């Protein structure tokens, strides 16, 4: 009886919390639209001239402004945009005249695929290295990990990308060049936009391997900074936990070294690491601009750079909205997960 009561209280608590958080997400998304719109208004630049160029005639410019509503006052433009947005319409790109939603659909899967790969690279490298460093505090493995972490965090993505392409692709030939597939490969029909999945759906294992193979270098480049951060975080968290009383108690009770690390230390050290993971994934999803440029990756990062340089406001707005949503959702997910792992945390 008591347990049932507590459970239902917990469910009510969590539900109320979720509602509050979802309300917050809506607020964040509205803030994003407002800020983006405001910035687009103060930037001294004319989208019509940017789209039509030097040779455009006055009547063409006028027609462009009217067609895209740019001749109306800013607050009217904003109201029109928000009204469309509430009806699920992200508008048309000024540059390509294509619905922004189609562009997002086309380019976002490539970014998700790359970001997830980079995320796994960061996890696979960052966490074990952090643990190794912590267990060997101030000994050579720790020093090496710390130096690598420093390098990984400080090397510009652009430089690292070109370096890896030059060494591992052009010189050694171990990894393929830029792009998602070999230039001579038969691209599978587009179903999900995820190359790894689409190649499998097309029953083409050879191209599937090729798509995985093409993911390695860009994922390493994109994930390196995150791996460095994770290694530092994990090391710090492990050291903190290893100095706790209960670890000493566990050791005193005769638990083996590996049992202490795996059962007692790792789980507790995971908590602070988990908080950064969400932020990392969000950062990867929205921060892939340079990696996508170097590796000719047809993702959202490249789309937004091209759009921004041609002052394509609806396109930029679409991407910022998407990024805002992704961040808010990941943060929410992390918070829920956090409370699940650590029973001391209550929703409230």
């Amino acid at each position, binding site marked *: 009886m008591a347990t049932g009561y507590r459970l239902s209280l917990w469910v009510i608590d969590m539900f109320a919390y979720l509602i509050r958080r979802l309300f917050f997400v809506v607020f964040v998304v509205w803030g994003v639209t407002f800020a983006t719109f405001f910035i687009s208004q103060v930037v001294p630049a004319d989208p019509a001239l940017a789209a*039509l160029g030097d040779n455009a005639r006055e009547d063409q410019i006028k027609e462009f402004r009217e067609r895209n509503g740019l001749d109306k006052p800013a607050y009217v433009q904003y109201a029109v945009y928000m009204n469309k947005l509430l009806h699920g319409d992200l508008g048309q790109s000024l540059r390509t005249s294509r619905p922004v939603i189609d562009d997002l659909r086309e380019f976002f899967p490539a970014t998700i695929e790359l970001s997830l790969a980079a995320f796994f690279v960061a996890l696979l490298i960052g966490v074990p290295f952090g643990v190794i460093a912590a267990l060997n505090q101030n000994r050579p493995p720790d020093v090496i990990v710390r130096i690598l972490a420093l390098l990984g965090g400080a090397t510009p993505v652009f430089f690292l990308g070109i370096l890896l392409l030059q060494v*591992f692709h052009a010189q050694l030939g171990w990894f393929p*060049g830029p792009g998602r597939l070999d230039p*001579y490969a038969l*691209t599978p029909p587009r179903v999900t936009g995820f190359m790894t999945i689409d190649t499998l759906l097309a029953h083409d294992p050879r191209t599937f391997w*090729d798509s995985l193979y093409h993911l390695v270098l860009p994922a390493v480049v994109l994930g390196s900074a995150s791996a460095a951060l994770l290694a530092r975080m994990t090391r710090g968290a492990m050291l903190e936990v290893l100095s706790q009383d209960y670890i000493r108690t566990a050791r005193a009770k005769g638990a083996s070294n590996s049992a202490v690390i795996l059962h007692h230390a790792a789980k507790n050290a995971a908590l602070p690491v988990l908080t950064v993971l969400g932020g990392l994934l969000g950062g990867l999803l929205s921060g892939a601009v340079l990696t996508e440029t170097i590796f000719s990756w*047809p993702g959202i990062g490249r789309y937004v750079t091209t759009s921004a340089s041609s002052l394509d406001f609806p396109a930029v707005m679409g991407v910022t909205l998407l990024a805002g949503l992704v961040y808010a959702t990941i943060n929410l997910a992390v918070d829920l997960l956090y409370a699940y792992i650590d029973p001391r945390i209550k929703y409230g």
Partner: protein
Amino acid sequence: MQLVKWLGVSLALGAGLAMAQDRTSTLIYGGDWTDLITADPGVSYEFTGGLVTDNLYETLVKFEGTDLSTLKPGLAEKWDVKNTGQGWLVTFNLRKGSKFSTGREVTAKDVVYSIERVLAIKGPSSFLYTDVANLKPGSAKALDPYTVQVALPKTASPQAFLNLLTFNIGGVVDSEEVKAHEQNGDWGKAWLTDHSAGSGPFVLNRWDRNSQVVLTANPNARLQPKLKQVILRYLPEPQAQRVALESGEIDIAENLTPEMLKAFGSNPKFKVYKSDNLRLRYIGMNAKEGSPFANPKVREAVRYAINQDDIINNLLLGNATKIQTIIPKGLLGYNSATYYTYNPARAKQLLAEAGVPNGFEFELLTATATCDFVPCADLAAKIQSDLAKVGLKANIKQIQNSEVLKIYRAQQAQMVLVAWSPDFPDPDGNATPMSDYNAKSLAYRNVWNNPTAAKLAQQAALEPTPAKRAALYKILTELVLKEGPYAILYQPAQNTVLSVKVEGYVRNGQNQVRFENLSKQP
């Protein structure tokens, strides 16, 4: 390291060394194709759009090789221009047996439909038909299945009309196929964005935006390509292009830096193809009364003060052609005269004669962008230092390109560093904008109103005989050279690096590359 190697090699084995396509019949062309927004010949007005549609569609007349002054037969085997007194009648005789990729024959009704379509769509390039050629719905008629007649008013230039037909706007579409894909009266515009219905040597197989454009040989084409497939692979970053070219992943690279070109130039596995672009990089000087550049002698002084050779050889590493006149090399009417040789002493003397022996201070406006191969800021700094030597103090103001244009178009700039490309491959694409104040283009922006120049430009535009036209342009270019508000700096080269295995690559000043002539050695 072993692990990395193991991972790489095992994945490579998984991927398989021989991929699905034959490497000698497929050519991979790497470049920054980001500007491609449509493959519709009636809408496209960007560089990559032109490159693609030129190979998907045929035009009535065309240019061959790098010569942009002699028209050659395309879908029309013959054409003629008649002066009717009220205007011009241009008659085209189509060759029989040209086929679209659908297998249907190209007939006069398709030509008329294609012209009507451009007029109805009102796309970015439609003004070429409406404003330059003064065409209206009904101007083009099919006299019989193989004869098309186009009526132009007296005010339009028949030569300019023929020249602009070589542009993608002149691409003839399969009217039945396009009508079948029409949605809500859009003349098939949505469908043609990423499909093709032409008689060119290739068909558009697929376009993965920001990834690749796959062109496959058109089995019904009159001009049969040597290759089965050409793939435009998006590689926006020059470093990525360099690496991909070195490793053999691409056969041609489009946007390499001058330093990379130099390195590839000395590598026997590659060849550098240089072609002229029709773009002119120039300085515009505001000749409005009260402006420091109102006096023609001051403008002459600027032209004497700028060291063009230094800019071309040291800043651009030779990747440009020296030019001082307003019609670019490659077009009819090009004038190779280099009247102004670098002479700071003469510049100072002219400034003294103009009553400003100690020079003056002014604003030099340029964009926060790349000017051909170098940052605009670098080019502006070079101009600034050249002008400083004769006492002219330029304050560089670097702003967003569309803002530069806004100020310039409102006649508010003192001096601008910008570029101009003609709208279509005809000398009038430069002559009228740069000479006729009333055309509200470049002469207007620089407040240079010279009725003689304007009249010459109009006369040359309407002249139907190429030789007479060229003679008129010679007079005009010399007049603008000495009196105009411009200091033309150079015509940038367009450089392409090819693997030595690639043969048949020719690119004209309009950036047309005929893929049907390309082949690849094993």
